[in-house]
Structures are given as C-alpha cells and as structure tokens.
C-alpha cells in the first residue's frame, strides 16, 4: 500500500502477465491510466476479499516472466491492495518462486531420500562438474537441487519448469545424466508419462480399479467404469445417510493424522455458520509419498465425484483442491476433468437435476511442504504465508476464510466412493477392527517393482515388499523407512509388523501417509539423516520457536556427528538430539515440528546409527 518497494515499476510483460490473470485494472489507483477517478476510490473490504488471488497471481507472473521482480511485486501489491512487504513475505515463502533473475528453463533435480538411494548424488555431481554449482545459468537453463518430487516409483526424478509466453512444466522420470545435460542444452521435453501401478487390472481393487484401465481424460469412460454411481447413491441416502455410512465405515484420514472422517463431516454438517468449505489436500509433499499423484493422474474424476459427495453431505457449495506445484500432469488432468464435469453438469448448479450446487477450484502450491498441514493450507489459499494455526478452533469450527471446513486427503476422499456404494458396514469389514478398508502404500527404494500398492489394512511390511517383487538380487536390507521424513525407521527384524494404525502406534512407529522405503546396505544412512535434518530445517515455516530453532540445532548435531567433530562425546550429542526432539514434540504448533526429529531419533534408537562412533 503506502510503503513502496524501492519505487520499482513493472515492465510491460509483467503488467500484462498480471492483468491477463486478474483482468484489466478498473481504477487508476490500482494501476489503470488515470482517467476521471482522481477524487475517489473504492477498496477496503471488497479489495481485501480478493486477497486469495495472491498466490495464483504470483504463479501467473512467475510462469510468464520467470521470476518475481520488485516492479512486478509492486504491481501485484497495487492490484490487490496488499502492502508490498506482505506480498514479499508470501512470495519468499515458496520454494518454486525466485525473487532474483533466473534462466527461463529451470531443472529441479530431486536429491531426496529415495532418489538418493537411486543414484541422484552422481547426477548432481555430473551437473556440478559440467554446468557449475546450483543456479549456474547456461544456454537459458539452470539447475537446482530439489526436495522429493513425488516420483519415487520412477526414481531418480527431475522436474523442468520453463517460463515464457507458453509456460511448460514437465516431470522427468528415471533420468540419467546424459538426459539431464540434454535438457540443460535446450532439448525438446518428452511428453507427459503417467505411471501405471503394478497391480493395474487386478480384481478386487477399489482405489486403483480404474487406473490404467479407464482413460483419465474421458468422462464417458469414467462413467463406463462405474463413475458417478456413488453420487447417485449418495443422493438417495441423503446428507445424513451419507454421513452415517461414513461413520459406520470407521474410515480414518489417510493423510497421516488418522482422524475419523465421519466425525469431521458430521461436525461440519452441524455447524450453523455458513458457508461451509471443502478442501481437498493434494499437497502431497512427504518425501517418499506418491500415492495421491497416481490417483490424480490416473483417475481424476473419482476425486471430483467423491468431493461432490462430501460437499453434499456437509453442506458445502465451494470446494478447493490444493495441489502441490510439482505435479504438472496431475494439474493438467484435474483442470481437464473439472472442465468436463462442469460441461456435463456434474459440477455447478443443480447437479443431477437436484437442488444442490457445488463447484471446485484448483489451487496450485509453489513448493512448501508445510502447506500440506491442514491449517497451513488455509493460509496458503487465503493468500497468506502458509503458516499453521493454533488449534482450537479446529477446522470444522473455523477453517478456510474462518468458516467451518472439511479438509481431507485425496485418498481419504476417494475411499468414500466405495463406502457409499458398498455401505459403511461392508467397508468396515475390510482390514482390521480399528484400521478399516483398503490402504495405498508407496513402496520404493530397494525393491524390484516400486509403485503404489493397494492392500487391505493388516498386511505386514514383509508381505508388501514381496508384493513389490522383493529386493533386487545382491541387495540386503539395512532398514525400512515408514511414513517418510516425518516417519520412522524400522530394522529388518521388524518386517512382520502389520501395517495398521494400531500396530504401528503400539510399536512406537508410524504409518504416516503410507510410505515404505526399502533401504539396502549400499546406502549411507548417516547421509540420509543429514538430508532429513536439512529438509526439516528448510521446510520449517519459522513461525514457532521450538521448530525454527530446533531443526537448525538438530541439523548441526547431525553434521558434527557425521564429521566426527562432536561437542563432548557421541553420547552427549545423541542426548542433545533427544532433548531437542522432546522440546519440538512438546512445544511446536503443528505436526512438522512435532515429528521433525522422529525419523532421526528412530534411526539412532532402532538402527543403532552412530552407535559405533561418530561416523555412521
């Protein structure tokens, strides 16, 4: 507003990119040429109501210009009546936005846990040697290391984002160094390629049944494969009937927190405050997780249908899908599916000729792990930094825009199709007493056939590894990582642990989002811990002290252990790590801080990393 960032003015291309998204400015006070409105302006509540356009506007600018310049940032601030300092705070929150000039083609090379197991270190060494350190520009291209890109079944992976008049984003899978160097040299990008899960076509699947079988870009094919039968059945049951079935199914959230879905829906349905909002959390960013991507790319209509049912049951007229920014194919498939569904009356006014209206807006993240936290996603959609909120009030009371909100993970929502079709009781008979239904597991690392696997709750780690073809010849299992960077390592002796909420909890492990990474003897475990510690430090939003400071201290302790230059004895360092972990667990606002030390501590206690001395 009145505080200007260096008085910088936007370039024409920047102004055009912003105006193309927001529409032309209507008043000279927000960027139009001065006409006859020099004596008055309207703004205030109506201007601030547009705040939620901030993140998409930043995307529009970045996609077309390749970075966010002071002039461009000023212009966005002016168009949306937001102080530039505030816009700066939001823009710098996201890893995919650059606030310095950058080459138009940016290659993000994953160097996270699974890709590292698949050899990404060598790729990065080659790029550093041939091109230069991260950020070096050559021939209009540059490269940067990236946290997990959610392509662990086809590791090592990279993502190319190219800005310009026709911006492009493309995931590169099973990459090798020649391929990356060719992309850096300006090679034409390969077409999108969606991975087909190894179980495709097998009978008895619920969540994966259409993937690889039905055309994800055809609404008719979706319907031919049983699509929109559940919505019709939902309408027959009525809102309360749907909620009753979901309660009976004992469905627990699949995003990691395992909260009973039916109770969430029931709470929102009974909130007198209107409107209610539905948010589908598709910000799948937990390292090692890629199950939601498989659904979004392979069966996007199933998500739309399940969201429509959820909205019908809980009284929402507006839904958001918050998709992580690193999933360009999923974005394309979802945009396409939403358009088709609108055309055919499955979204919009009077769906299936009922007195029920619902529409969905797709919102794209920009590289911030924390936005997968259920309240951080609200801030991100609203146009603020994606910082988690204190609870209570809970999202069902005050969520998105301060209104009662259902926020569910992709897999959770898609489960409700089976619940509505088969009935809650039948669904509850799948799996175990306290972990009902089918579950998707992201099996990756040292296995023959990495991929997304659907099994009933209760399968053991050993069974899951066998399903994935077991370890490659010559590999011997060193450890299993469950639940990703916020999860827990287990030792090979624990292979018979049943993968249920109750069994993992009882053994002090976690199921998290369904990550199962097999780690063989080739992998440097200490190095993995260092990546996890760096990841947590980088992704901490910085809002609360225990996490902001604790993740840094934890990373430093790991670095000292790795280098052998410990402060005091190794035991002193391990005690320090445990104490930092306890402080973060007890005092952080959100799950990130509360679990930022869990994988590291489990590696120390369960695997005996650092036991024999400083260097693992």
């Amino acid at each position: 507003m009145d505080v200007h960032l260096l008085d910088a003015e936007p370039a024409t291309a920047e102004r055009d990119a912003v105006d193309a998204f927001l529409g032309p400015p209507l008043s000279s006070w927000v960027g139009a040429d001065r006409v006859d409105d020099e004596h008055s302006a309207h703004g205030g509540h109506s201007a601030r109501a547009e705040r939620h356009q901030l993140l998409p506007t930043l995307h529009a600018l970045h996609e077309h210009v390749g970075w966010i310049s002071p002039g461009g940032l000023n212009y966005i601030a002016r168009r949306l009546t937001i102080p530039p300092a505030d816009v700066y705070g939001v823009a710098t929150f996201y890893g995919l936005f650059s606030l310095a000039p950058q080459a138009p083609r940016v290659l993000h090379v994953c160097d996270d846990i699974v890709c590292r197991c698949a050899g990404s270190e060598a790729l990065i060494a080659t790029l550093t040697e041939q091109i230069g350190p991260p950020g070096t520009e050559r021939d209009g291209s540059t490269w940067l290391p990236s946290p997990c890109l959610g392509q662990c079944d086809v590791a090592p992976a990279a993502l190319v984002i190219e800005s310009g008049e026709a911006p492009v984003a493309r995931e590169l899978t099973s990459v090798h160094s020649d391929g990356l160097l060719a992309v850096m040299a300006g090679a034409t990008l390969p077409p999108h390629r969606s991975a087909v899960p190894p179980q495709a076509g097998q009978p008895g699947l619920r969540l994966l049944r259409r993937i690889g079988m039905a055309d994800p870009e055809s609404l008719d094919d979706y319907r031919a494969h049983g699509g929109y039968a559940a919505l019709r059945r939902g309408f027959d049951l009525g809102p309360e009937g749907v909620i009753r079935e979901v309660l009976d199914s004992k469905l627990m959230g699949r995003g990691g927190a395992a909260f009973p879905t039916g109770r969430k829906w029931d709470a929102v349905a009974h909130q007198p405050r209107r409107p209610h909002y539905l948010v589908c959390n598709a910000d799948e960013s937990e390292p090692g997780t890629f199950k939601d991507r498989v659904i979004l790319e392979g069966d996007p209509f199933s998500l739309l249908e399940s969201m429509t049912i959820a909205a019908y049951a809980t009284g929402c007229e507006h839904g958001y899908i918050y998709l992580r920014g690193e999933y360009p194919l999923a974005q394309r498939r979802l945009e396409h599916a939403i358009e088709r569904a609108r055309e055919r009356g499955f979204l919009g006014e009077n769906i299936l000729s009922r007195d029920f209206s619902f529409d969905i807006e797709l919102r794209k993240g920009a590289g911030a792990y924390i936005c997968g936290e259920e309240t951080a996603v609200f801030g991100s959609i609203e146009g603020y930094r994606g910082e988690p909120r204190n609870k209570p009030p809970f999202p069902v009371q005050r969520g998105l825009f301060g209104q009662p909100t259902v926020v569910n993970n992709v897999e959770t929502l898609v489960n409700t199709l089976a619940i509505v079709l088969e009935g809650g009781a039948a669904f509850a008979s799948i799996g175990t007493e306290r972990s009902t239904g089918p579950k998707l597991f992201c099996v990756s690392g040292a296995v023959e056939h990495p991929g997304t696997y659907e099994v009933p709750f209760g399968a053991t780690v050993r069974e899951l590894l066998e399903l994935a073809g077991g370890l490659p010849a010559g590999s011997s299992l060193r450890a299993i990582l469950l639940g990703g960077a916020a999860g827990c390592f287990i030792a090979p002796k624990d292979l018979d642990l049943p993968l249920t909420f109750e069994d993992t909890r009882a053994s002090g492990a976690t199921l998290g989002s369904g990550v199962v990474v097999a780690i063989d003897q080739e992998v440097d475990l200490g190095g993995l811990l260092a990546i996890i510690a760096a990841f947590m430090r980088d992704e901490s939003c910085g809002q609360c002290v225990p996490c902001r400071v604790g993740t840094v201290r934890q990373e430093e302790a790991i670095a000292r252990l790795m280098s052998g230059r410990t402060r005091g004895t190794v035991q002193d360092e391990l005690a320090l790590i445990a104490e930092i972990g306890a402080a973060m667990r007890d005092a952080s606002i959100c799950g990130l801080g509360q679990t930022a030390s869990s994988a590291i501590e489990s590696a120390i206690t369960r695997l005996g990393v650092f036991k024999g001395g400083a260097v693992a």
Partner: protein
Amino acid sequence: MFGAGGGTSSYREVEETDLLILWGSNARETHPIFFHHVLKAVHRGASLHVIDPRRTGSAQWADTWLGLDVGTDIALANTIGREIIQAGLANEAFIKRATTGFAEYRASVEPWTLQEGERVTGLPARTIRELAHAYARAERAILCWTLGITEHVTAVDNVLSLINLALLTGHVGRYGSGLNPLRGQNNVQGGGDMGAIPNKLPGFQDVQDDHTARARFGAAWGCTIPPQRGWHLTQMFEAMERGELRTLYVLGENPAQSEADSKKSLESLESLDFLVAQDILMTKTCEMADVVLPSSASWCEAEGGTVTNSERRVQRMHKALDPPGLARDDNWIIGELARRLGHDWGHPTVEEVWDELRSLSPMHRGMSYPRLEELGGIQWPCPSEDHPGSLFLHGRLWEEPIQGAPAPFSVTPWAPPIDELNDEFPIRLTTGRRLDSYNTGVQSNLYSSPLRRGETLDLSPEDAVTLDVEPGELVQVSSRRGAIEAPVRIDPGLRSGLAFMTMHFPDDIDVNVLTTDASDPKAGTAEFKATAVRVEKVNGRRRESAGVASGEAGD
C-alpha cells in the same frame, strides 16, 4: 461538543461500531494507536470511509475514499446533510425530541444538491450519495476528525457541519455512535480539561458565564477571578505585533517553529521584552529565551501526575527515572516561581494539587488517586466516588424526557480557503504529519527512523511530469508570503494540482514560511491546510546527499 470539549465515544465503541468515518484524518500515520482500534473494527466487518484530499495510508484501508478538494469540507457535509433529508433518511424522532434549529438547517442546506456538491468538492455525486446513505442507514456510526478539519479559517464551522450530520441521524449519545476529535498527543485532552484554554476554568467551566464556578475558584484560591476570557495563541501573536504583549512564559511548546507564517512569528517573539521557556529539550524557542527553565519529562521523570487520552480517560503516571542535571518537575518550578513572585504556595504534592482540582471540578470529583490506580483510569465525567466514569457522552439526549438543553443544529455556510489559487500560484499545498516524526521534530529528530526521509515537496506523478522534475531534484516553492527550496518526492496518492509537505524539519526547510497566518476568528486555528503555491525548477540542481535531512544525521 455541546459544551464539553471531548470525544463522545470510547475506544471499545470504536471497535464495535458498524461504520467509521475518518474526516480530515490520516490516523494510520498520525494517530497510530487509535488506528489500531479502527482496524479492530474493520477486521470485525465495520466499513471505513476516509475523507481526505490525499489518498493516504488510512485511505488505502477504506471501503471508500473521498478525495475532496482542500477546504470544501463544509460543502461536502452540507451536501450529505441535504441528501439524507431528501432521501427520507433523517432520524426525525431524534431531531424532534433532542435538537433545535432543524428548520433553519434544512433551509440552509437546500442549495447543496448532489450536483452542486460535486461541482464544489470535486467528488463524484454518486460517491457522496453512497456515503450519505451508508452513514444514515448504519445502526451504529462514529465520525472522527483531526486537523484536516480544524486547521482552516472555517475550523469551528467545519466541526459544526459534522455535528449537524450526527444530529440529523441520531449518531451521538448512543453506544457505538458518536463524534470524536482525535487528540494528537497523550495529554492534549488533559490540557483542555485543566483549563489551559482561554475561556474555561478547569473542568470546562466557563470563565465568563459561570458565576458559581468563578466564585468557587475565587474562594479556594483567595482571590477574585476576572470574568474575562484570555487570548488564544493566535491572539497572543497579534498582541505581540501590536506591542501589547511584552512578556511570554512558554511551557512545552515551540512557537518559534510551529506557527504559520514563521517569518512573522519569529519577528514577534524577537520583539518581546522578556521570554521564559520551560522545556525538556533545548528548542529553538529556548534558544531565543532570556531564561530557560529545564524541566523533567513528566511521563517518566516526574513524581506522579495524570494524563487524559482521546476517550476522556484520566490515567496516572509514575516516575521511572531521575531527571538529568538541574531539571525539575513542572509542579516544583511553578510553585517556586510563585514563591519568588511573592505567593508562597509551598510545594504541594501532585496528589494534593489533584485533590484541589477534584474539589473544584465536578466532572473530576470521583477520581481519587487510589481509584485511578484501581480502575486503570477513569473516563470523565465522574462526579462521585461511587461513579464508574462515563463510557460515552450525551446519553442524556436519549433519555425520556431528555436531560438538559437540546442540542442545536448550526447553519454552516461554506467559504473557500483564504489563499486563492490563480495562474501565479496554481498548486494547492497542504501540510501534515508523518508516522515517525512529531510536530517540529524537537523530540523525534533525536532518534533515527528507517522511514524518515527528511523534508520533501510531495507532488503527484502528473505534476512532476509537467514541471519536468525528478525525485530528489531541488525545486523552489513560493507562496504569497515567502519561498523555500525543497527536494521533490513523487507520491502517487496525490492528484495533479495537490502538493504536500510536513513541518517536521523546520531547521532544514521551514515550511511555515509559506503558510498563511489567517485563522479562524472563533478558535484562532491557522489555515495550515490550504496554501497556494508555485513550484519552479532550480536548474536541475539536486540536494546534497539527496533525501537525507537532519533527522537522519544520527544514523
């Protein structure tokens, strides 16, 4: 208003009202604490309307900004009043039972059609209409103003024209509805409360008309109170010019730099026989004085005392530090001065002085020091020790039957600013303040601020193009009274023909060389807000170390 000089509403009401008007106020910069209360209301959903020639930081928070031409406030108020009446939105029940003079008022605003209002103020008729309807329809509405209303030759009528609107709609005397002049300092209100105005004894008791009060003070002080009002500041300067006022005792003011038409006022001060200045800092006025009495900073170095804020809340202060050097408390200095002038009052404590006030001022009577401590301050009037203080004023107008005299409408004719624009002086200069500086900078220029950019002439982008000047470039600014040089700053919140300066850096650039000392005949307030100027290029010269003024010297 209607007798008592204080805002009618409490901060809590500001937070809980439905509609807020800031008229001639950039509260975001000049009353930042009050603006926090405004923001609480806004975040709760209240609508905010800002009336100011400049699109200020406050205006950028507003639902509507009305950028009227400088000095057309009465025209706007009268137009709004007529529109409310025409649209049938006047609160007839309230007008009938609690006011007088409505018929004359209605007749006086009759010519102020929306079209006429648009012609005079420059505002679009539809925007005026929107505000009139929104204000009249609101269930609760609070109107606030500051110096944009009062630093005009028509200051009193400006205020009366706003009061008319509150009477028209019944937006006064109820919870969440009121009229509030915002006070620029922590104790402007307290100064008025204590009788530091020419026509009132402490507690707003009239020195001319209130015989009982005068007798009460006379009895307590063992003297006769003359039944004549004194001079206000402008009249004092006029008396100095005439040679009638020969001795001046200045406490905590810096008239050498704060007065309009400063060349003239400096001459007046220099012509005095004897000038005494009492201050916590060595101001320009102190430098001119024959005797300087260094005083302690009353908010942290003096024993006790009270201040009164914009919601009429009297609050205790406490000593935290010993004053430096020979500095003494104001209370001690005054007592000692009296003794040496032949009246030994002894050296009463601040509480003893306060208790004497309580015995003489009915509206303070219930405010004992223990109660002020216990309740965290008390809002006047508080007539007895079992009285909780008053959340808002003029609730009496809503009682059945109303208590006291009804509130009068006033006829407020509009007159343009004294300093007319013409071809020779085509640009309207208005002056004001910024967030991180305080008046003439005596106190605030002692510390650095990242936002302080020194004095500049702020111009609209259009005028900068027309004049072919760039930011930082030095220009000559001339008015009918004098000329100064100042570097240019471009402010997109200004429209062509409107320029802005502050008076924070008088040592560097003395803006008040330009302003007129024409003042309101009733209140004595000078027209700081409307000066006609001419801006000329000075051969593209730039200021040495552009933008850095004395205020940043300590960086």
